[in-house]
């Protein structure tokens, strides 16, 4: 697993990244921390995908974060679309116990 962020250099996310939710702003955005030394990164809620029990994903639909179990400290993954590094999705798996 590699975790690096190169927004300005290469134009987006590459690979697979794991981080922890640092701050939730209901209705607006999620901040995710990827390393203790770097500032958390902001993600719009329309990039948030929720993993379902059957392994599929659904787009975040405005549910309360508490209902999903998404709290500060939750593990999330950033998955970029191959060939479209700017189109990164934030994936939360409520069934994964870290």
């Amino acid at each position: 697993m590699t975790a690096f962020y190169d927004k300005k250099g290469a134009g987006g996310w590459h690979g697979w990244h794991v981080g922890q939710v640092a701050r939730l702003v209901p209705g607006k955005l999620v901040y995710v921390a990827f390393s203790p030394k770097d500032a958390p990164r902001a993600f719009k809620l329309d990039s948030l995908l929720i993993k379902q029990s059957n392994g599929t994903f659904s787009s975040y639909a405005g549910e309360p974060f508490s209902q999903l179990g998404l709290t500060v400290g939750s593990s999330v993954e950033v998955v970029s679309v191959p060939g479209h590094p700017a189109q990164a999705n934030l994936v939360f798996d409520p069934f994964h116990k870290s």
Partner: protein
Amino acid sequence: MADGLLPSAPTRRKIRIDRQLPPQARNWGRILDLSAAEPGDLILTRPVDANSDKISAAIRKAQLEGGFALEHAQWTHAAVYLGDDEHLCEANFKAPGYPNGVIIRSAFDYCDGTYAVRARRPKDMNAKERFTNSDWCIGEFGEFL
């Protein structure tokens, strides 16, 4: 750039937006490119027509009387960029559609062709320290000033 980014500035590029934009930005057809901004950066605004808004005119007058040069006194509103390519946290009142106090709103609310915009970054703070600016502002969200 002392006068900031003016609505008359040429368009840098065309982009496709697949989400809802504030009506004024949709009508005007242009939005701010915030890709170079980072969480905690300050976004300063002012009406292009300095006399169009009595409150802004009063702020500018007070800042001039307080000793600021016009270059700095012209900026009548400040917000903190949150880092998601769109949202700002700011203290405001009588903003259409928002309660008075500390609110989070789209930077594109200022994209109606009547505002000049300038971004400022504290030069003595690193990215993590600047993030604490935006984090603190979010903590004030909903507070009434």
